[in-house]
C-alpha cells in the first residue's frame, strides 16, 4: 500500500545522504506522509485513506534522520532549554535554535479564528519549529559578512561568531524568522543540527533515527536504503 509515497521518500533520503557524504551539503527537510511515518516506526497504525500530510518532517543529518512530529509535541519547552544550555551556557529560550514557546499560545500565526486553530488557545496543536536547512539559504545570502556557511561536518548552515556583527539581516531574510540575535552578545544563533533537542525530547516529538536502525526498518519491509 502507498508504494509510490514510500519509494519517493527512500529516494529523497538516499539522495540527501549521498549528497551529505560527498559534499558536506545538506538538503531541505522532507515532509512525511502517514505511510512513511508508519514505515519508520513513528506510528503503529497503517493509514487507510489517501495521503494527507501530517505536518511531520524529516532532516538528513550525519547521524541519521532527524524527525519532527507535531502530534507528539506537548509544549514542555525543554528542547529550548537544552539547546541554549548546551550551546550558550544559559537558559535563553528567546535565542533557542529550535522554537516552540513563541507558538505555544496561537501557533505560528494569531488571527481572529484562534479558538479553532493551532496553539493552546485553540486546538492545542503546537510544533517545534526547526531550521529548514534550506538548499538556497536566505539567511546566508542576506548576511553582509558572509558569516553563515555550511559546515563540512554536518551540512548545517552555521554562524561564524567571529564574523557576525549582529545586524539581524538573517532574521529578516529567513521566511520563518528562525535565526535570532542574542541580546547579550549581539551574535546570531541558528540550528547547527547538534541533536541535543531530539536527544532530550520527552515524547519523541523530536527524534533521531540512526542510519543503522533506519536501514533495518526498511529492510524488514522489503526496501533498501543503500
Amino acid at each position, binding site marked *: 500500500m502507498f508504494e509510490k509515497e514510500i519509494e519517493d521518500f527512500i529516494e529523497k533520503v538516499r539522495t540527501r545522504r549521498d549528497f551529505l557524504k560527498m559534499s558536506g551539503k545538506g538538503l531541505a527537510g522532507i515532509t512525511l506522509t502517514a505511510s512513511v511515518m508508519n514505515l519508520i516506526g513513528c506510528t503503529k497504525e497503517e493509514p487507510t485513506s489517501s495521503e494527507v500530510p501530517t505536518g511531520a518532517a524529516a532532516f538528513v543529518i550525519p547521524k541519521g534522520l532527524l524527525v519532527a512530529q507535531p502530534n507528539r509535541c506537548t509544549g*514542555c519547552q525543554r528542547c529550548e532549554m537544552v539547546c*541554549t544550555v548546551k550551546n550558550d551556557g*544559559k*537558559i535563553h529560550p*528567546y535565542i533557542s535554535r529550535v522554537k516552540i514557546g513563541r507558538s505555544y499560545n496561537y501557533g505560528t500565526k494569531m488571527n481572529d479564528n484562534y479558538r*479553532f486553530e493551532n496553539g493552546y488557545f485553540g486546538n492545542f496543536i503546537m510544533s517545534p519549529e526547526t531550521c529548514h536547512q534550506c538548499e538556497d539559504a536566505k539567511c546566508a545570502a542576506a548576511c553582509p559578512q558572509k558569516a553563515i556557511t555550511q559546515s563540512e561536518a554536518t551540512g548545517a548552515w552555521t554562524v561564524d561568531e567571529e564574523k557576525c556583527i549582529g545586524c539581524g539581516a538573517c532574521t529578516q531574510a529567513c521566511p520563518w524568522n528562525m535565526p535570532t540575535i542574542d541580546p547579550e552578545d549581539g551574535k546570531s544563533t541558528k540550528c547547527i543540527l547538534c541533536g541535543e533537542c531530539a536527544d532530550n525530547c520527552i*515524547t519523541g516529538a523530536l527524534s533521531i533515527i540512526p542510519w543503522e536502525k533506519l536501514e533495518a526498518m526498511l529492510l524488514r519491509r522489503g526496501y533498501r536504503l543503500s
Partner: protein
Amino acid sequence: MANVTGWTGKLLRVNLTNGNISVEDSMEYNKDLVGGAGLGYKVIFDEVPQGTKALDEANKVVFAVGPLTGTTAPCSGRTNITALGPTNPYDAIVDSHMGGNFGAWMKFAGYDAIIIEGASKSPVWLKIEDDEVSIEDASGLWGKGVIDTTHEINKIMGKEACVAAIGPAGEKMKNLASIVNTVNHSAGGHGGVLGAKKLKAIGVKGTQAVHIAEGKNQDWLDLNEFMMTDIIGSNNQHVVPSTPQSWAEYHSAGSRWTAQTALFWGAANPPVETGVCPAGDKNKVGLRTQKAIFDLGPVAEERTIKMGGCYSCPIRCQSNLHVPELEKYGLTPYATSTCINFSSPGTAMVNGYSDEDPKGEVALITKCLGSRLADDYGIWSNYGQLPRDFRYAYNSGKLKEVLPEEEYNSIDWSLLEAGDPGWMLEFYNNLIADGEFSHLLDGPYWLDKRWNLGKEYWDGAGNNVWSKMAFPKHHSNEAGAQVGVLVNIMFNRDPNSHTHMNFIGAGLPIELLKEIAGEVWGSPDALDAPKNYTPMNEYKAKFAKWSIDRNFLHDSITLCNWVWPMTVSPQKSRNYRGDTALESKFYSIATGIDMSEEDLDLQAERITNLHRAATIKEMNTIDMRNEHDTIPNWVFDVDPDMKPFTEGTVKLDRDDMQLALTMLYKEYGWDEKTGAPTRAALERVGLKYVADELESLNLLP
C-alpha cells in the same frame, strides 16, 4: 543590583494608588528565604499592617518565583501568589499557585517577583516587556472573560506574551475567584483581591536569559539527565505502572503511570500510542501519564489530543481534549484540565448524569463544560468545596429557603434533575450573576454567616469542612493517619501539600515504603498501612514536618509539589530510592551557592516559621492549638461503630491527635502548650527580627 544566577536579582513593585513603579533588589528576600512563598511571607509580614482585611487597599499581592523557575529543571514552572485571603475567617495569609508559563515568563522579563500594592480607581492592567513596565487602561477589558482578556492583550503585546487575568468573578470581588494564565492554569482565592484593586490582568513578555553558575552547563545537563533517567516517575511521583509490565517488578491499579500497550492519545493526528514506557527511557517520560482516562474514564481515550502541562514539566498532567458536544452549549470543541477542576463540576450534579454513568460520556461532557466555564469566569472551586456547598444547600432545602422566589424560579432546575450537562451553564452563570445564589462564592465561613447552614454542615463527614477554619480538607486523615491531619492544620486554606500523599500513593508495596520511610524519617513506624492505623509516635511527627517544610520549599524555589520531592524512584537498580537532595543540587548549580540538603531544609523551616508568625500576627493570638490548629469532629466521629486504630477505618482519637500536635510543636521547637513559635525557635532559624516584632505585639509565648 546583586550579580546573581538562578534568580534575576530584581523585583518589581507596582503601586496602583499613585502609579509608582520601581525596581528593587530581590536578594534581600531571596538570600535567606529562597524566593516564591518565602519572599511573599516577608513582604506581607513586614509591610501589611495587623488588622488589614483581604479586600483592603493595604493588602498586597506578591507574585513570586524562585531561582529554579525558568531554568527548566523538571517541574519548575509554578508561580506562587501570596496575599491575605478573603475566604479565611481572619483574612489570614494564604498562597495561591498557578502553573502554565507565567512564572518562567516573569524570569525571562527579568523579575523574581511582582509586588502589587494599593488600589486603582479605575480598571487597569500591568504591561511588562523586559525593562518597559507600564500601567495601562483596562476599561475596554473590564467585563470580559479570561480568554477574551488574554487575547486582547496578546493583540497589543504580541502572541508570545503570557497573560494572567481575572474574570467576572474576580471583578465582582468574590472570595472564590481565581487568577488564570494560559487558558486553564488557575490560582484560587486571590482573584477578588485583584478585583478590589481593579487590576484586570498582567501581561509579560521577555527576551532575557536565566543564568546558571559559570561553567556549570554540562553539570546542569547531567543533573537533568540523571533525574529524567533514574529518578522521575509519573504524576504525583507514582513510580510503578498501573498495569503489569515486563520491565516493572511492581504495579498498582491506582497509579497515575497509566501508559500501556494500545492506550492512545486517541484524537491526535495520527493517534499516539502511550505504550510501555520503562524506567530509564527519558524520551518517553511525557507519555507515562495518560491522565484523561484516569480522571474521566475510558471514554476519554479517543478524545485525548495530547497531554499538556506547565513550563518545563516532563509529566504533562493536563488532558487536552476534543469535545465537539461543547459547541451545542456555545463553547469551542476543546477542553483542558486535571484532577479537581474536572471532578468538581461533577459534584454539582446532585442527581447524577442522564446516562446514569459516573464515568460515562455525559459525565465527561459535563465536567469539560464546567471546567471551561470556571476557567473563563475565573471561579475557584475551593478544592471542590463550592459544589459541595451547593449540594448541601440544595439537598437540605436551604437554597429554596434563602433564594428570593423570583430568583429561585428563574433557575432551570429541570436540567439538574435530568442530569443534563446544560446545568453547568445555569450553575456557573448564576454564580457570576448578582443574586443570592452567587453567595456560594463567599466560601464556607461567610456563607454560613449569611445562610446559617447548621451544625450538620460543619460536622458532616462527607462535607469535608476543616473545622472553624472553614477550608476543605486536602489529603487529611485518610492520607497517612495523624500525618495528614498535621499537614492540614498548618495552613489557612486547603493545603496544596502533596509531599505526604505522593509518597503514600507511590505504588510500591507497603513494606518497601515503610523501609524507605525509616531511612528518611527515622523509623518505619512513620507510615501506617492504609486504613490500618496505629497511635501517634514521634516519627509521624517528623514525617509531617518534613512534608510541610518541603511543601513550603517547593512553593518558594519553585517546584511542583504534585511531583516533587523525589522520595522514591522507579529504578529497581536504586532499590526504588529517590534522591531527597535533588532540590539542593539543582539550587547549587543554578545559583552557584554550595547548598547542602540540610541547609536548604533549614531555609524551608525558616519559611514555615515565617508563615506561622504571620498567621499569629493576623489572628492576634498565640493559642494556635485551640484557635488555629483545630480538627473537625468528623475525623473522630466517622464510623461510629468502630474504634480508632482498628483495621478498616480512618477515624482517629481526640487525645491521640492532641498528642500529635504536641509532638509536631516539639519538632519545630514551638511552645508545646500553644503551638506558637518561641523566641528560641525563631532565632534558631534566623528570624530574630520576627521574634522582636511578635514580642512588641505581645504574641510570644
